[in-house]
């Protein structure tokens, strides 16, 4: 149900672009207005989300510790999985954000006869996640050549590396293949694995279909229905220089690709995709396990009623005296 719904929404977007550009001639809307609005929504939306999380207090220092604590000098502590200094925390966050350290730990439990619970290593999800995210990043960076004149050397170098195995033109990028395979695997997990399917929401399928549609439309545009690259660059350069122009004769597939990308940008702040920013604010990862060394202050702490020792002794004084336990008031 959620699968069809999400798929239908992506198809609908494609059809709307088709009708809007081919039918109504709304090129200006799709190539200029929507991109600006989408980018604005993305920037304001994500900033708002981060700001809003940042407003929430961190009353307690509650890192999840994943290794030996800092302790006696002759016991080696695990400085990255159980950091007790800011450097350790930075290291832990780098591993988490760049290498998906926690996901790398993943295991798969199986119940065998006996009964015997067995835990196997399960790195496929990690591999697919790394492949997807890094391909996405490389593809995004490669696209900077549409927004720069001249194209900076690092971007050219990235293109060179990404197309390393290819001779001839147009260059075939490794990341194009990798991201499709990774997306198909992530989609397979949601559709084919009963547990994952059970927890999946429409908002889990939608980004997968959307990004897949973006990738496929991009590949189609590049290798099959070759659009007028010079015209496209006129549009993109017009957008970044705030002097938007639309040359004639650019294929519909470009408008579809662009609008799907805009959908992703605009959808981003309202969806689970904000995990990209949220992971930096996760208190179980970005705090040091040093609460016995440095005091952490709860900003909303308030006075509460407690039971004082006097109350305690008043209730038990006779019993304490009889048992020979010292008391404050005889």
């Amino acid at each position, binding site marked *: 149900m959620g699968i069809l719904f999400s798929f239908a929404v992506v198809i609908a977007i494609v059809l709307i672009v088709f009708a809007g550009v081919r039918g109504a001639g709304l090129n200006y809307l799709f190539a200029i207005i929507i991109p600006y609005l989408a980018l604005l929504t993305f920037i304001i939306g994500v900033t708002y989300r981060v700001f809003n999380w940042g407003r929430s207090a961190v009353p307690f220092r509650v890192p999840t510790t994943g290794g030996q604590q800092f302790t006696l000098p002759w*016991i080696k502590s695990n400085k990255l999985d159980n950091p007790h200094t800011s450097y350790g925390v930075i290291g832990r966050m780098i591993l988490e954000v760049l290498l998906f350290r926690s996901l790398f730990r993943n295991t798969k*439990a199986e119940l065998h006869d006996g009964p015997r619970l067995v835990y196997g290593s399960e790195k496929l999800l990690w591999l697919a996640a790394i492949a997807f995210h890094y391909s996405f990043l490389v593809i995004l960076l490669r696209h900077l050549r549409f927004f720069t004149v001249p194209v900076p050397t690092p971007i050219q170098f990235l293109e060179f590396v990404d197309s390393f195995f290819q001779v001839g033109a147009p260059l075939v990028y490794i990341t194009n293949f990798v991201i499709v395979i990774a997306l198909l695997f992530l989609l397979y997990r949601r559709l084919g694995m*009963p547990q994952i399917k*059970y927890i999946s929401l*429409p908002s889990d399928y939608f980004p997968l279909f959307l990004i897949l549609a973006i990738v496929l439309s991009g590949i189609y545009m590049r290798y099959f229905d070759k659009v007028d690259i010079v015209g496209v660059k006129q549009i993109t350069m017009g957008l970044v220089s705030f002097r938007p122009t639309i040359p004639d004769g650019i294929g519909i597939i470009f408008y579809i690709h662009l609008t799907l990308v805009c959908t992703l940008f605009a959808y981003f702040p309202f969806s689970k995709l904000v*995990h990209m920013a949220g*992971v930096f604010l996760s*208190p179980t990862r970005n705090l040091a396990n040093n609460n016995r060394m440095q005091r952490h202050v709860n900003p909303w702490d308030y006075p509460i009623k407690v039971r004082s020792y006097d109350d305690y002794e008043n209730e038990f004084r006779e*019993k*304490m005296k009889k048992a020979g336990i010292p008391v404050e008031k005889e």
Partner: protein
Amino acid sequence: MATKGKPPKPEELSKISYTPPQRNWMDIPVEFKPGMYCHATRPKYLEAVGMPFPRDWSPADADWKLPDNWKEIILQGIKERLMKYRTFHVFMDICVRCGACADKCHFFLGGGDPKNMPVLRAELLRSVYRKYFTTSGKIFGKAAGARELTEDVLKEIWYYYFQCTECRRCSLFCPYGIDQAEITIIGRELLNLLGLNLDWIMGPVANSYRTGNHLGLEPHTIKANIDFMLDDIETITGIRVETTFNRKGAEILFIGPSGDLFGVPGNYVTMGELMLFHEIGLDYTWSTMACEGGNFGFFTSMEVAKKLYYKIYSEAKRLGVKWILGGECGHQWRLMNQYADTWWGPPDFLEEPVSPITGTKFENAKGSKIVHITEFTADLIKHGKLKLDKSRNDHLKVTFHDSCNTSRAMGIFEEPRYIIKNVCNHFYEMPESTIREKTFCCGSGSGLNAGENIELRMRGGFPRANAVKYVREKFGVNMLANICAIDRAALPTLMDYWNPGVDVCGVHELLGNALVMTGEIERTLDLRGEPLPGKGGAE
């Protein structure tokens, strides 16, 4: 006390399917299965600590006698907590439902109920959050994973948030560190706004407020219990050990879990500690008020937890000690490591802890001034201050169960192992995926150690028990050591159910067995009063 239910036989219970049903989870109403949930709290316990809506009610009843404005109270409660806890706020927003946590939860592995996958347990509350606090949830409703807060939804949250032991295993594997323990803690706080707690939690809370300990032991009883232990120590070692209570001017205040003052096998841990402190001539005292490092308030609300921890530093101050030594207890160390100083610190009336025997400065406790007893003892052994006869534990083949809280909210792995390896000849680790930071819960933590939910406990403890079974079959392990009082209360039942013949002990019981004391008689008995094989006792 709760009546003890009878769980199905292990062969029945271990038939577990991890395949979820066809129907969408939102369309499956919660079903209260006997043996899987606890009794409701009696009103008197709520009244004792001034908590709202005390009344007689039962989870199985259709009518929970909720106040008319219950929905408003919960929604307002969520709103407040989104601002008070960044954990809650971020965790409500960033889950991508990748499913990495799904098969990490002991309740899911032992029961197969999909709503015990941490991701779905969180979604129970997240769906409500979306409905009332997010734009997409308000507009798109179910398509955005949002749902109305109804009485059935509230009951479902209650049922499953008391099927979580706040062990944090899911949080270790989550790529964003989403911690179901944190969500459960806040979920339970919300439920407590409506007086919806367990008898097994609120009873100890009320006791702890009045007497300082969960069991409700009054000061003279504490002394009497320890006197009994001193008698037993004398029988075993021939030495009359002395100890003091509420003594002003002692150097160290010792605070362990009250479970170790009463009942088997916790009392053997206390005996081991008493013997150790005597042998090294430690200048320490007990406090009859601060005689409980455990804190069931933590399973109620942060305010109640803080309330119950007032005694820790206030008694240290009143007695004028220099620092605090904390005993073998799991969630006590979650709190002493991550909360105590924030709640009631800074303890600037105390001194930075230094071992009076070895001169070691406990650098990692210089702020809160609370040292873990295995840190203290490991340091003694390292410096050769203890004479140990390992062979007195030769009848034991030991494995070590890392407790959730000391593992994933502290990281104390080597210290207890170092002690065990120095007092036992036969030590075997359980499989790597089930120990240290990846350890499995006993299945009874966070206040779920009741009698009426025995099936839940046996299911939740299944992954732990199964790992013990592995080392039992492979190495003949017959003793499951740990550093947690809840473990010592819960694991014997769990072992009897899944692995009969495996016993449970604290680390300082093993130490007490091995400790050669000055002037002791030849040992023929272990701390349990049972003959030591090959030591003049019966074989």
